[in-house]
């Protein structure tokens, strides 16, 4: 458990995928079976445990800590599990009981009855250091977040074992934790495990960004065009009665979207964008991707979840026939044919192809994208096979133009807890005569260093503070990006921005050059 905790900690702080792969390979190379397999399974969320509720953590805190000191500490740290992990006494230098292995933890958490969790955790906590305790409590609470997907793990293992990542992927889905035959193969001690049968995930084909001047250089006759929906890219796979919904990194989402899994009544694999809808359909009218978040985070109760549906755009297999080597145009024809003949679920729709005769018309379509449910356009080369490596850029994203306004920073608002050194949201205003009219609270979408500079500037220039709000002199211009602007009577400026965020800080640009309200009004949709 100690080694696993160190891995989870290092992964959580590692910004680059390459670094993560290196850490995972080091873990596989230095930890014996069955711990390494269970460790990876736990990271990938394959191990199912009923999450311990916060009440369990509170009860443990009450048992072993002073309530006043716990309250002060919790106020400072902010996170319940972290506070408890940090406050819990360290084991004595030569303790009698050893920390549990990750294999032991994974097995016990999966089987312990609800009433026994507290005691189990208490015994383990007494054997672990702070990092171990933190990892254990997060794991038990079902909130261990390390941002590592199956794809990354497979790439790390492949690089370590000196084999092709797709070869690992092919047998991965046929194996269960602790994956001992896989490690034996990668260490040249055993045969290559058989490729998995069943409802397996197929690595997805990426779409590369399209450059600004690029459309003009492409031949419209060679490409097709679709909307890029603002949802979740999914792969629906059925095989001999097995059915699965996979995310773009191979994460199994079937349990999160059971109604979509139930729609997989076929053998084969299709791909599409999963969207939330305002109301049960059909017809379904899509909501922005944010509406799916409560489902993914499992934060909302099922009855209050928005309905979901899928707009299909590709077909990778029909029956046992692999369609991936076929050109896109042929796969699309198979998809349409299959859809008309065999798809029976109202939750599955076809994503329409858009007319693409010349780039002038296409650009007008692109310029006119409004509303938050479309992220842009996707261009696909008619003759391209389905290629997970994405070589040659046969799929391209033409992102919708972002709307921005240059506004003057007025306030910063602090978060709570230890993050209190940073600001949560920022308020900026546009000019009307000599006045500044706030355009709503914006989040920051800045590189870390720029964000720190901005926060430091606010801290150093605060002229007034009300609770968590810091007022600054109207001197700093920031670029506020947003999805859409709409009229509103509840806002002083008469407008409300959707998803506003600070894109850039315009250091040294005088406040008088900021945009006026009239500029923003011209961007109102409809």
């Amino acid at each position, binding site marked *: 458990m100690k080694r696993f905790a160190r891995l989870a900690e290092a992964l959580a702080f590692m910004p680059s995928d390459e670094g993560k792969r290196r850490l995972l390979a080091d873990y596989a190379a230095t930890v014996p079976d069955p711990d390494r397999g269970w460790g990876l399974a736990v990271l990938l969320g394959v191990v199912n445990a009923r999450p311990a509720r916060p009440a369990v953590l509170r009860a443990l805190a009450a048992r072993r800590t002073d309530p006043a000191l716990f309250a002060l500490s919790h106020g*400072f740290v902010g996170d319940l599990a972290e506070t408890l992990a*940090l406050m819990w006494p360290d084991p004595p230098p030569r303790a009698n009981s050893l920390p549990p292995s990750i294999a032991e933890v994974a097995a016990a958490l999966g089987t312990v009855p609800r009433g026994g969790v507290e005691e189990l955790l208490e015994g383990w906590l007494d054997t672990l250091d702070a990092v171990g305790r933190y990892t254990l409590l997060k794991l038990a609470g079902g909130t261990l977040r390390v941002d590592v997907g199956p794809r990354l793990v497979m790439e790390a293992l492949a690089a370590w074992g000196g084999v092709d990542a797709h070869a690992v992927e092919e047998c991965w889905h046929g194996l269960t934790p602790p994956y001992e035959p896989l490690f034996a193969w990668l260490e040249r001690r055993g045969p290559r495990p058989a490729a998995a049968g069943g409802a397996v995930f197929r690595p997805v084909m990426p779409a590369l960004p399209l450059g600004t001047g690029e459309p003009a250089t492409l031949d419209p006759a060679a490409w097709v065009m679709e909307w890029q929906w603002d949802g979740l890219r999914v792969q629906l796979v059925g095989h001999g009665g097995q059915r699965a919904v996979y995310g773009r990194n191979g994460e199994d989402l079937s349990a999160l979207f059971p109604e979509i899994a139930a729609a997989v009544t076929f053998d084969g694999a299709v791909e599409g964008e999963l969207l939330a809808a305002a109301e049960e359909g059909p017809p379904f009218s899509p909501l922005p991707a944010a509406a799916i978040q409560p489902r993914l985070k499992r934060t909302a109760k099922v009855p209050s979840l928005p309905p979901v549906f899928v707009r299909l755009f590709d077909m990778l297999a029909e029956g046992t026939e692999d369609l991936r080597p076929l050109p896109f145009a042929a796969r699309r024809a198979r998809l349409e044919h299959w859809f008309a003949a065999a798809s029976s679920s109202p939750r599955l729709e076809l994503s329409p192809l858009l007319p693409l005769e010349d780039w002038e018309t296409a650009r007008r379509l692109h310029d006119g994208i409004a509303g938050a449910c479309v992220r842009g356009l996707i261009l696909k080369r008619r003759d391209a096979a389905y290629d997970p490596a994405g070589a040659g850029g046969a799929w391209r994203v033409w992102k919708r133009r972002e709307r921005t306004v240059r506004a003057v920073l007025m306030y910063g608002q602090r978060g709570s807890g230890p993050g209190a050194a940073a600001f949560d949201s920022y308020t900026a205003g546009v000019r009307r005569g000599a006045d500044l009219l706030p355009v709503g609270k914006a989040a920051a979408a800045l590189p870390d260093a720029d964000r720190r500079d901005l926060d430091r500037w606010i801290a150093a220039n605060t002229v007034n503070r009300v609770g968590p709000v810091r007022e600054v002199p109207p001197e700093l211009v920031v670029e506020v990006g947003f999805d859409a602007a709409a009229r509103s009577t509840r806002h002083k400026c008469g407008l409300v921005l959707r998803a506003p965020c600070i894109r850039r800080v315009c250091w040294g640009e005088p406040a008088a050059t900021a945009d006026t309200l009239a500029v923003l009004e011209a961007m109102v949709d409809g």
Partner: protein
Amino acid sequence: MFTPSVTRAAAAGRWIYPTPAGLYVAPGDFFIDPVRAVDRAVVTHGHSDHARGGHAHVLATPATLAIMEQRLGRSAGTVRQPLDCGDTLTVCGVRVRLAPAGHVLGSAQVVVEHAGARVVVSGDYKRRPDPTCAPFEPVPCDVFVTEATFALPVFRHPPEGEEIGRLLHSLALFPERSHVVSVYALGKCQRVIALLRAAGYDHPIYLHSALEPLCALYTRFGVDLGDLRPVVGADAAALKGAVVMVSGSGGGGWAAALSDPVLAVASGWVRVRQWARQRGAELPLVISDHADWDELTATLAELSPAEVWITHGRDDALSHQAARMGIRARALALVGRGGEGEEGE
């Protein structure tokens, strides 16, 4: 054998007390770690929140005076009087002695005795061994004046050997990446270097220019830091997989020369993940020159003073803990120490 006395502690409050300029010893007419320029100052150690410039007379250990001279130049004090740890001086009926605090090179506690009462002003301190300075000496007293920088039970600094071990492990795992270690210029920098040396790391260590003078000063005072080189002008190939010490968050034009550096942040604060993230740390190293919660409470238990006065930091939690231990606590709330959330080291 010294037995702390509640009566003497209560009486001490009439001749040593906080003022806007800092903690004042009335019969001796001097301040300890004043935050404003005063006529006579006793300074516990060289950190800038304790050692301010512009005093007329300064009394401190020779190492602290040297640090002040280097940092403050001509405003380090008109008359500078060295006092070695262990030596005693009498000023207008007040006996003053310095005792090692174990915080940074030259750091000392000020032991003040007057009218039979003994007050120990500990400045900043820690209790664990540090190869770069003399260990904390517990001095029994009526009143113990303590810091409370890390006075929350969530702050328990792990063994420093383990943290250095994580840095060495990362160097082994990413041999092509420079490891930039962000440290406080005085104390932390030299301690991290000394810990690396003690762990057997004998490659050159590269220094940002702001760190060079203090490292040289430590070497002059007999602390061996091994092969140190300036990072500015260093060969890009030599910096691959090398340890580079920087003060603060790093940055600066020279940092661009490093390809894909690992940013390690050595601070007691990074024990809380949110802090580590805010500093952009990829490798948080929980290494601090301040007493952690266990050291603070163990020191109170060991000394069992009649009263504990708390200068700066989390006086709420430490007061509560002192009360649980039967020790009367008083928060002095001295101004000018630490900042909003970002405590000086």
